[in-house]
């Protein structure tokens, strides 16, 4: 325990001291229950360590009996920005700023004193990372099948109220969750060096970088649209059912966690924007002939496919979390455990609960700790390197940035509003995740207060060919009905009067 935050906190890393909510701050609830943290943070940590081990071997900077890459302070999930900045330096040509731009809203990346890998190790990491990326397709297909089987297993076990069946569901889901998070980490990590490679290659072949790439780096088809078609009735545990629940938080029907859960309204009727135009990316391929064009095209396609894989792996994680959301309350009830207990246990503790019922006795103290934690203001960026915790940087985004190109003027709408007809509208929200995917076919642009170059909403907007700007401080002042112009290339936002 740090002793500086309520005792629910994990131990801070002794050397990598700067934490940032980063991408988690955009898409995850501001506070997570201990159960959800154990299903999100812990397997994500394991997945990142697994990746480090496969690429660089057992390294002191990538292991230890404390969390290295994740943090949980005041019930708020964090990424360890220092650790990710250090990880970035272990690849040739990749700088900590590349990671900060991709996933940490451009916050200043901290310097770390940890030793950098040798040049040979950095170079040797490249083919290993490529190998990991090359395995994504088969891994995702296997996971897709296995997750579906677990969902069906959970449905049967819940229907039969079978203790053994439910316990087996949790056991099966545990390994799959680790694998799904590990796959997500590979895609998330891989996108950074891929964009660095693209920058170097395109500067050489095209003479510039940054102008055409936003139009090229598009996923062809993301998994979310299909999943929204497979939501089904509640309880059927169809692949898309989780979309009707909060992401990340499995105790989203219980206080106090319910107040942090984010759910956007899903549009299921009406006509999505028709797009019969030739895609700018396709137009670009026609302009780039020969070997030069094929190289540029190949890199962009790899990046687009990696974006798709990132979203796919995330959807698998969310489906597995949903299996827990449905399974845990039923199993707790069968074990005669109070319904309010399980969110305060970790998944490992819960699995042991039947054999060690005394674990539940710890819950009142932990609940009290959580109640204290959630009323403690927590900064977005946290430096635990000094005598007392302090903010690492201003919480406000540095500047608005365009993450999906195009320019559009439209009326401000919020996710919970009815969308106006016959006028272009721009979805404006603090942050957005894949649960807004059904809205994207009906809006003409996206503007968010939080976000980075590789945010999920950035990837989604690219798939839907919607101009998108993230990190815009003006968002909180915009009201439904206001008219704004956004430029997804430059990040400019004009409030039209």
């Amino acid at each position: 325990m740090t002793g500086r935050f309520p005792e629910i906190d994990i131990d801070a890393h002794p050397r990598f001291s700067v934490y940032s909510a980063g991408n988690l701050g955009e898409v995850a609830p501001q506070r997570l229950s201990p159960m959800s943290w154990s299903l999100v943070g812990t397997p994500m940590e394991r997945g990142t360590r697994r990746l480090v081990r496969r690429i660089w071997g057992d390294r002191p900077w990538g292991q230890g009996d404390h969390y290295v890459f994740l943090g949980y302070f005041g019930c708020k999930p964090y990424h360890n920005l220092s650790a990710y900045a250090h990880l970035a330096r272990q690849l040739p040509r990749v700088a900590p700023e590349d990671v900060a731009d991709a996933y940490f809203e451009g916050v200043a990346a901290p310097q770390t004193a940890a030793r950098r890998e040798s040049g040979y190790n950095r170079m040797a990491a490249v083919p290993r990372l490529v190998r990991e990326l090359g395995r994504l397709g088969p891994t995702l297909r296997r996971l897709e099948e296995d997750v579906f089987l677990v969902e069906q297993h959970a449905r049967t076990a819940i229907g039969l109220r079978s203790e053994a069946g439910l316990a087996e569901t949790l056991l099966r889901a545990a390994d799959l969750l680790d694998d799904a998070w590990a796959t997500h980490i590979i895609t998330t990590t891989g996108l950074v060096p891929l964009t660095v490679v693209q920058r170097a290659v395109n500067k050489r072949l095209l003479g510039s970088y940054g102008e055409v790439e936003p139009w090229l780096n598009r996923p062809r088809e993301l998994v979310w649209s299909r999943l929204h078609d497979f939501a089904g009735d509640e309880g059927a545990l169809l692949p898309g059912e989780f979309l009707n629940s909060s992401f990340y938080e499995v105790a989203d029907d219980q206080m106090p966690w319910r107040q942090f859960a984010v759910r956007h309204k899903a549009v299921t009727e009406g006509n999505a924007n028709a797009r019969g135009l030739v895609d700018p990316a396709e137009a670009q391929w026609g302009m780039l002939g020969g070997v030069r064009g094929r190289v540029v095209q190949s890199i962009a396609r790899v990046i687009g496919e990696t974006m798709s894989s990132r979203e796919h792996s995330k959807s698998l994680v969310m489906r597995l979390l949903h299996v827990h959301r449905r399974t845990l309350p039923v199993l707790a009830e069968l074990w005669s455990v109070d319904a309010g207990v399980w969110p305060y246990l970790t998944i490992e503790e819960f699995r042991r609960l039947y054999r060690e019922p005394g674990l539940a006795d710890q819950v009142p103290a932990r609940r009290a700790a959580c109640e204290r934690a959630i009323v403690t203001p927590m900064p977005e960026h946290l430096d635990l390197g000094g005598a007392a915790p302090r903010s690492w940087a201003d919480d406000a985004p540095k500047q608005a940035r365009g993450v999906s190109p195009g320019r559009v003027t439209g009326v401000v709408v919020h996710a919970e509003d009815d969308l106006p007809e016959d006028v272009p509208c721009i979805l404006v929200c603090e942050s957005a995740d894949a649960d807004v995917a059904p809205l994207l076919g009906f809006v003409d642009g996206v503007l968010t207060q939080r976000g980075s170059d590789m945010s999920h909403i950035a990837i989604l907007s690219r798939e839907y060919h919607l101009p998108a700007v993230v990190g815009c401080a003006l968002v909180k002042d915009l009201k439904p009905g206001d008219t704004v112009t956004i430029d997804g290339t430059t990040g400019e936002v004009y409030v039209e009067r």
Partner: protein
Amino acid sequence: MSGDMRTEDKEAVAEGTVLVLGGSGYLGRAVSLALDAAGWDVVALSRSGTAAAGRGVRGDVTRHNLGLSGDEAAALRGSVTRIVSCFGSVDWSAGPATALDLHAAGVRTMLRFARDCPGLGGLVHVSSLLAFGRAEGVVGNRELYVGQTFRNWYEYGKYHAEALVREARDLPITTIRFGPLLGPDPSGAPLNAADGLPAVLPYLVQGYPVHLRDGGRFPSYAGDVACAAELVGRAVARPAAGATWTWYDPDLPTVSEVLHRLCRPWGVVPKIVDWPAVGRLQRLVAGRIGLPKALLDYAEPWFQIDPAVLSALPGGIPRCRPGYLDATGAALRAPDADLQGSFV
């Protein structure tokens, strides 16, 4: 070809206000003059706010309300009876953001503005034949996308803009496609020849060879800007909602002929060769010798337009001013032409 054309039969009457978007440009100035001469009340909107005829208004087609204040926009909406879109950049080297922000976002803004004009009787959208890119086979007024690839973002921008216009079936829009427009500026303004075909002149005039397939003996689809403006005026006077018109110089000057005539005032015969090796070399050294790379993509025959598009023009085929190509060269050689700086 003209089956979808619904030209009003009544006699054209030049009454009302025409909003010319991009009114300070090469074509915009010519159109403003032509419409003003025909008796229309012309409002020329541009970023500079200057006008060759009528009233100049400072605005921006890429901004909401065309960049006008609420009151200005409301007043304009109330008075406008016709809109002509002449805005756009002919920069073949422009990137995607520039091309799409101007052509696509600009057209969207224009369409939105037009929908709020209660008295709007017609909208004329000026497009480009280059929207066909590297189309194969014969293309005409009906076609827009025929599986073509595009040489540059300008072509894609024009394609994108015209596609948006075609989708706006609720507005009385006439689309007119032109090829490269040449000829002295009817308003007397100096020519800006940094873009388009004339951009190759500094290179040719200095005696360097240029590779063109078949020696450039393929159609340029060039046309006289004054005639183009006249045709726009015709569409303004007699809106043909949903129709697409295509016009180019019916004498069909080849690219070689155009370049010869443009070079004539310098007393230079351009060295046009059909040597692919020269083309490859030019591509390698284009940046160093000041030759726009985008021009090199036009060294092959462009596309094939169905000649019937000309006879489909209502009111007959406009004829270009005699000697307009020679006059273009002379204008480009004038001391105040932008091209002069390229010879340093």
